[in-house]
Structure formats: structure tokens, C-alpha cells
């Protein structure tokens, strides 16, 4: 009987993203072997298959397997794999709703952390209210204070959007497109990012999306990826041209190169 641990392809454990034909062939071979695993190790094998699909950005397949795992084992890690994959696919609403429902019965700090990040990225007064009600169940005052602090930042973010009269729905749609673009890019190039927004001199919202360890070609590629995604969203009816033009009259963003790594940048911010 195959030990699932032995089937993990090297590319997943090497610490570097490798999507060469050889690596992908190894992944396929691994999946082929893992699908044959039964008995006590079956759950582990299913999880590994999900992770291998996620490694290849095959989100639909990954989700399929993560859901199978969660049906058999409701550990929080298995739940998180589902919502993280949903967000990566761009189904942020689904990720938010599932997380809110999960927290109704299971007050888990990792899920709370994930959800707070998500609602910051895709702000909504309703979701903020629901998140707040989940926080009331936290008994530890320090932890509750910490999360309330983060909720305060979400409120400030919403205020900023209201100040420049940006419709929340359109804003979250654009953020969805931007995040899908960035996740896709991060997936293939391993380059992390961080966003900051401010009100520009024209009284519009201007966002700078810093891509760590990026170069000139990365910015060109990101612009192309983003524009392609916008076109897809419009063709699929998820966003109308009028909505897009309206949001662009109030919100603009730029991908920018940041030559430090994210860790170096966080260190600089902490010391300054």
C-alpha cells in the first residue's frame, strides 16, 4: 500500500515554484498514485491531491478534493483549504458567507483572521456587522480587542470609499478582478504584494499595489492580465461597461515595482 507521503512530488516540497513540464508530469504521476490509496491513508491522499491541484492552480479540481476531505474530516485546516481556494477562484462572496456560517458554530481564530482579511479586501457594511457579531462571542478580551482594532480599519476603509462616493458593489468587483490577477501572478511567479490606498489630488481613490521583487516586465504582464480579466468579466456579464467606467471615474490603481522582499519591507515599516 502506497504511503501518501512518499507520493508527494519534489516540486511541492522544494520551496520554489516549479511548473516545468517535468514538474507537472511528476504532479500528474503523483495524483495517479494517490487516487489508488484506500483505507486509513485515504483522507491524507485526498488532501494531497487537493494540494497538488492547488499547486498547479487547478482551483476547481482542488476545491473538489478539499470538499471531499472536509466531508470526511471537519478539521479547521480542511475548511480553510476550501475558503482559501474559493477566494483564489474569485468567489469571494462564497468564501465570506461560508466563513461567517462556520464562525456561527465554531469560533476559530484562523477562520476569523482569514475572514477579517477578506472583508478588508471586499468591504461591506453588512458583512462588517456580521463579523462584529461573531467577535462578541470571543471571551478573551485581548484577542477581542485585537480583532476590533482590525474591524476599525475596515470601517475607516469604508468611510474612505464613501468619501469619494465609490459604489461598494463596483469597488468590490474591481477588487475581485485585481485580486484574481494578483493571485494568478503570485501563483506563477511567487511574487507577493501589498496594497495601499489614498485620496488623490483629484479627490479620487488611488491605490498602489506594490509587487515585491518585481521588475519592469512584471508590471507590463500584470497590466495585460488585469485587462484580460476585465474583458472576461464584462463578457460574462459579471460587470457592465457602464459600471466599470463609473468606478474608474472615481478609483484608479497602479501596479508598482517594489525591489525589497515583503519581509524586508515589513521590517522597514516596523522600525520607521
Amino acid at each position: 500500500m502506497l504511503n501518501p507521503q512518499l507520493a508527494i512530488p519534489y516540486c511541492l516540497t522544494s520551496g520554489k515554484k516549479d511548473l516545468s513540464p517535468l514538474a507537472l508530469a511528476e504532479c500528474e504521476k503523483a495524483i495517479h498514485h494517490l487516487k489508488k490509496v484506500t483505507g486509513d491513508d485515504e483522507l491524507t491522499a485526498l488532501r494531497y491531491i487537493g494540494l497538488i491541484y492547488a499547486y498547479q492552480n487547478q482551483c476547481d479540481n482542488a476545491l473538489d478534493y478539499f470538499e471531499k476531505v472536509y466531508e470526511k474530516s471537519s478539521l479547521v485546516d480542511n475548511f480553510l483549504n476550501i475558503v482559501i481556494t474559493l477566494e483564489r477562484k474569485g468567489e469571494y462572496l462564497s468564501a465570506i458567507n461560508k466563513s461567517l456560517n462556520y464562525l456561527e458554530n465554531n469560533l476559530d481564530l484562523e477562520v476569523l483572521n482569514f475572514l477579517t482579511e477578506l472583508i478588508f479586501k471586499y468591504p461591506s457594511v453588512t458583512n462588517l456587522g456580521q463579523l462584529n457579531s461573531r467577535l462578541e462571542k470571543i471571551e478573551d478580551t485581548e484577542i477581542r480587542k485585537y480583532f476590533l482594532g482590525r474591524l476599525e480599519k475596515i470601517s475607516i476603509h469604508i468611510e474612505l470609499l464613501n468619501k469619494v462616493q465609490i459604489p461598494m458593489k463596483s469597488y468590490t468587483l474591481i477588487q475581485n478582478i485585481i485580486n484574481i490577477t494578483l493571485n494568478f501572478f503570485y501563483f506563477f511567479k511567487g511574487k507577493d504584494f501589498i496594497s495601499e490606498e489614498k485620496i488623490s489630488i483629484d479627490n479620487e481613490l488611488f491605490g498602489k499595489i506594490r509587487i515585491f521583487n518585481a521588475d519592469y516586465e512584471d508590471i507590463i504582464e500584470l497590466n495585460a492580465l488585469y485587462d484580460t480579466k476585465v474583458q472576461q468579466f464584462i463578457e460574462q456579464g459579471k460587470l457592465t461597461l457602464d459600471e466599470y467606467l463609473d468606478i474608474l471615474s472615481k478609483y484608479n490603481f497602479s501596479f508598482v515595482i517594489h525591489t525589497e522582499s515583503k519581509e524586508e519591507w515589513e521590517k522597514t515599516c516596523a522600525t520607521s
Partner: protein
Amino acid sequence: MQHHEFYNCTTSIQANATEIELRNAMSRLYYYVYHEILSIISQNKDLSLIYQGLDGSSHKRLQNTFFTYTKRTGKLIYTEISRLLQTLHNLRCDADYELNINIVFSDFNSMLAQLQTLKSKFQMENATAFNINIELPKKVVVIKNTNKQDIQNKPSFSFVD
């Protein structure tokens, strides 16, 4: 004076440029784009009519000309162009007005990358637009002594569009 001189004066920027040199270069880069776009608009009857009918600052009118043109033509590329004009304008405003932030070499390169994207989009419709070679500033690559041979001159190369 020809407006491409605004671009030409930025090509001497090196990786060790001072912050003021970078800020000035980013500002000149934007104004190269500004005049190039005005030139493109003036050569197109539809774009001219739209531009002349718009209110607001000259920068906003440039951006909104292409937003309006998207609605007329249904072609998303004009919105993509407008978005890039907004981006370039905002980056230039950071260079000119935001004295409390650090402007670094990578900010200048980011702006060059946005310019390259804009140029590519225009050249899909008009091969003569943005008739410049966008070159990344030259970098010193390596200085190395080996056991067998000393490398006497610093090799350098530039990224060529």
C-alpha cells in the same frame, strides 16, 4: 520644441539618480505622454470633438476623452488607455506633490512600464503613435576577478524594448 524631448531628457536617468532627478524625470515622462496624447487626439476628428466638448482639467479631459470614446465604439481598449493615463497622472502627481514619500528608482521604472503598456495599446490602433524606444536605464551587472582572468571593464547592458 518637439514634445519627445521631454522623453529624451529622462533617458539619461541611472540607477544611482538622486530623488530630485527621479521626481523630475517622472514629471517629464508624464508630460511627454500628455503632449503625445494631445497630438493623437488632434489628428482624429472624433476624438477632437469629444475632447473639445469636455469640461474639467486638461488632464481629466484627456482621460475622459477615451472613456467617452469607449462608449461610442464599444471597444474596451480605449478604457484601458484611459486607465493608464490616469495611472501615469497619479504617479506624476506623487512625484510633484507628495514630498513626504520616498521616490525611488523602482518608481521611475514602474512608470516606464506603464508607458510601455500604453504605447503597446496605442500601436495596436496606430503604428506611428509613441514613436520612441523605451529603454530601461543601464545597470552595472558584474565586477569580478577570477583566477584565470581579470575583467578590466565593467560590462553593462540595457533592457531594450
